[in-house]
């Protein structure tokens, strides 16, 4: 039960990472590696501010701002200086490694007894339920874990809804169109470069918030926490697309949440079943490879059958 709740919570927190990857990879087809740096940046900024007794809410918002700045940097390298999209992201990600160390002052920053969003949710839960643990279908569940689950569910729901509503606005539809058909939207008076800057800022801001909340949930920020996160987010998005099918944006955003949760559950089950944690990233990469290649294979096989 604890395993399930933990996996659900982390899956929901990382659905913000999936949103970010969805914006860069799916809307703009921009393979944005900055993500790996900005998730750590979000964690680092939030952790440092929380240790300095800034309100956790403000600290999380600051993480969004920092992530948005990182995304802007990548977008400017690409649009202004015409550097290849992948390379722009790699440059900023590499630079962020040093930035993150400077922000934290060391490679690992614990948040032992600080007031975080997670601890605030816990005390709210205890006030509400009146006990440090509750029983759900014969399992004893810590109020702390339950509160964190509810918190992460709320965060994922709010972020998902906000993102959906954003893409229904004039600027949101223009952004979608900039990724879908740049030539067309330019002819309708939209500066595509500006859209890429705003889009990547939004994407990395969301990713940084995922890092900030993850840090508060697990109780520490680590300079290594971003490694492999792009592939992780991409796996979530791909699973989500497979789950919901269709192209409607609302479904895709919901799908990204579902994909993130399901992927985290699969990982938890695999680790429980004896998968060596060291192999996790290898298996994830292999999974994404298969998910990217199989649909094309199936299509070709079907076509051959028809002939």
């Amino acid at each position, binding site marked *: 039960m604890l395993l399930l709740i933990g996996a659900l919570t982390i899956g929901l927190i990382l659905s913000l990472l999936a949103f970010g990857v969805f914006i860069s990879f799916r809307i703009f087809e921009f393979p944005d590696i900055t993500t790996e740096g900005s998730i750590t940046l979000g964690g680092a900024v939030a952790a440092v501010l929380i240790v300095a007794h800034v309100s956790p809410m403000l600290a999380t918002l600051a993480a969004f701002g920092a992530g948005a700045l990182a995304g802007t940097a990548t977008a400017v390298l690409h649009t202004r200086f015409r550097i290849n999209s992948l390379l722009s992201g790699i440059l900023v990600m590499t630079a962020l490694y040093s930035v993150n160390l400077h922000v934290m002052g060391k490679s690992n920053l614990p948040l032992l007894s600080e007031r975080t969003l997670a601890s605030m949710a816990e005390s709210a839960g205890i006030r509400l339920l009146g006990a440090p643990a509750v029983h759900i279908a014969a399992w004893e569940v810590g109020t702390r874990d339950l509160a964190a689950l509810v918190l992460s569910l709320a965060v994922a729901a709010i972020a998902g809804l906000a993102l959906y509503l954003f893409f229904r606005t*004039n600027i*949101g*539809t223009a952004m979608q*169109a900039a990724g*879908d*058909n740049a030539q*067309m939207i330019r002819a*309708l008076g*939209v500066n595509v470069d500006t859209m890429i800057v705003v889009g990547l800022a939004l994407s990395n801001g969301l990713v940084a918030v995922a890092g900030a909340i993850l840090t508060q949930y697990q109780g520490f920020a680590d300079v290594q926490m971003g490694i492999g996160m792009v592939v992780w987010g991409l796996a979530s998005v791909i699973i989500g697309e497979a789950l919901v099918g269709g192209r409607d944006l609302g479904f895709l955003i919901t799908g990204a949440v579902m994909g993130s949760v399901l992927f985290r559950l699969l990982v938890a089950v695999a680790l429980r079943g004896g998968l060596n944690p060291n192999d996790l990233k290898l298996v994830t990469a292999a999974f994404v490879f298969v998910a990217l290649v199989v649909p094309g294979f199936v299509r070709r096989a079907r076509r051959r059958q028809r002939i």
Partner: protein
Amino acid sequence: MLDIRQVYKTFNAATPNEVRALRGVTLSIDDGSFVIVIGTNGSGKSTLLNAVAGGFMVDSGTLAIDGTDVTAWPEHRRASFIGRVFQNPFSGTAPSMTIAENLALAARRGRPRGLGWALRRSALDEFRDRVRRLNMGLEDRLENPIGSLSGGQRQALTLLMASWLKPKLLLLDEHTAALDPKSADQVIRLSEEIVTRDRLTTLMVTHSMSQAAHLGDRLVMMHRGTVLHDFRGAEKRRLRANDLLNRFEDVRRADLLDESAAAMLRRLYV
């Protein structure tokens, strides 16, 4: 309305692939006139349209729309004056977005885009109304992605989108060349209808001699990056497709003469 003065453009300058696409084009178009542009392959007619739209910056010369010098303006800024339909039916619409969303994008051409809803109910009614007038049965499919439509339907919608906010200048770049004859005919009739109804100043490039003869009130024939002939008024009205074909034949002969004369001179003197 549109003032093109001494515009030059060379692609891949100083390389073996150098193309002198525009060599001093000067063309002034009156408000409300419908100008057809024809020319041989590589004559620079599409390049001229692209230069006006801002697809690239010209090497020298000036471009002015409605008295405003737009020579240095980027494409997206010129879009506030210009409506545009491309040769490729897939270029003018965003395929994974719905018909309604595409129309909403066009309804704000050249205007600021903020956090207002893209699809307000009142806007949807107007979309349905104006799409119904295309007589393609698309008014009931506003929620379908545009990528699911045929080339002809997409081109008709692109035309509707380009003219949605009565542009100061409408650019049609061989917009029926990639369509089947029936759709091409439909789109041409629609173009004529919209241009006449809204009295749009229009620049239309075409390969079809019958379109060139039947449409518009002025005809410009381009060759080797310059304006070779310019027919207007009664002269344009008298032109038939055959006359145009004869003109092309003349151009071809003159080109051959150039080459054979050059060959002769080479034999004699080199």
